[in-house]
């Protein structure tokens, strides 16, 4: 997962599974970093929400992982890949409200079962693949949306 060297923004963030204390920090840095580019606010908002959900999924479910974010012109790509248990049934995991989060995660307000739903809704292209006992990979692409199109976020 090497960031595109010619992209106007390219960073990779390591994420620690179970690291609830630091959770959300990478997304905060993405927000600051991408915020310096001339991106439409609605695009930035969708990227940051989806990145946050991807980050939280790694924290909640995986051993470790990394998130790569790159931007060129007004197109943003986010790739989240983890080493972890994998998802036995992706179709089920994509059902809004379905969650396998731990009690600890739930006590912190996570585990609504809306993470993948939020990512898929925010992204213009969403791909997920998973291998049991190996890990999960989510790839998302974002482009500016015309006002009033599809979703307002």
């Amino acid at each position, binding site marked *: 997962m090497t960031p595109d060297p010619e992209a106007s923004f390219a960073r990779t963030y390591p994420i620690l599974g179970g690291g609830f204390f630091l959770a959300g920090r990478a997304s905060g840095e993405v927000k600051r970093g991408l915020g310096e580019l001339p991106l439409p606010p609605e695009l930035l908002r969708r990227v940051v929400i989806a990145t946050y959900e991807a980050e939280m999924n790694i924290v909640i479910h995986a051993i470790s992982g990394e998130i790569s974010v790159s931007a060129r012109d007004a197109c943003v790509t986010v790739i989240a890949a983890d080493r972890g248990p994998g998802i036995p049934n992706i179709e089920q995991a994509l059902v809004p409200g379905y969650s396998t989060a731990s009690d600890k995660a739930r006590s912190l307000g996570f585990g609504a079962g*809306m993470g993948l739903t939020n990512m898929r809704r925010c992204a213009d292209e969403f791909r997920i693949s998973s291998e049991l006992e190996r890990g999960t990979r989510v790839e998302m692409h974002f482009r500016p949306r015309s006002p009033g199109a599809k979703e307002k976020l």
Partner: protein
Amino acid sequence: MHLAEIAEILEAQVLTGGDRLNVEIPAVGASDMVSDLLFFGHPGMLLLTGLTKSSVVRAAQVADVAAIVFVRGKRPDRDAVELAQEIGLPLMASAHSMYDSCGRLYARGLPGVIPAGGAGAGDVS
């Protein structure tokens, strides 16, 4: 409605961000689930919550929340307050329950956030 008026209606104590009470709040959302907040969140909204860890402050930052009120007498932990100070997010605490807090604000004309894509799961196609 300004944050200062909201603090008055909720009889809330301002924990941090007292210099930003002139912020105009267009709408309110209430949730104890982070992803729900990100789902229905609206830039500039006020969040009512019972979550007290720093994770809710980070989520609020991601969702462009303008301020947080902790309800039913809950207090954010120290990390949450420090993070809020760092990012300039006002925090307040009210002894009223979630239900009563929502009711008080609604009765004064402050609307709820409109869920993107309606009340359901939204457009996930």
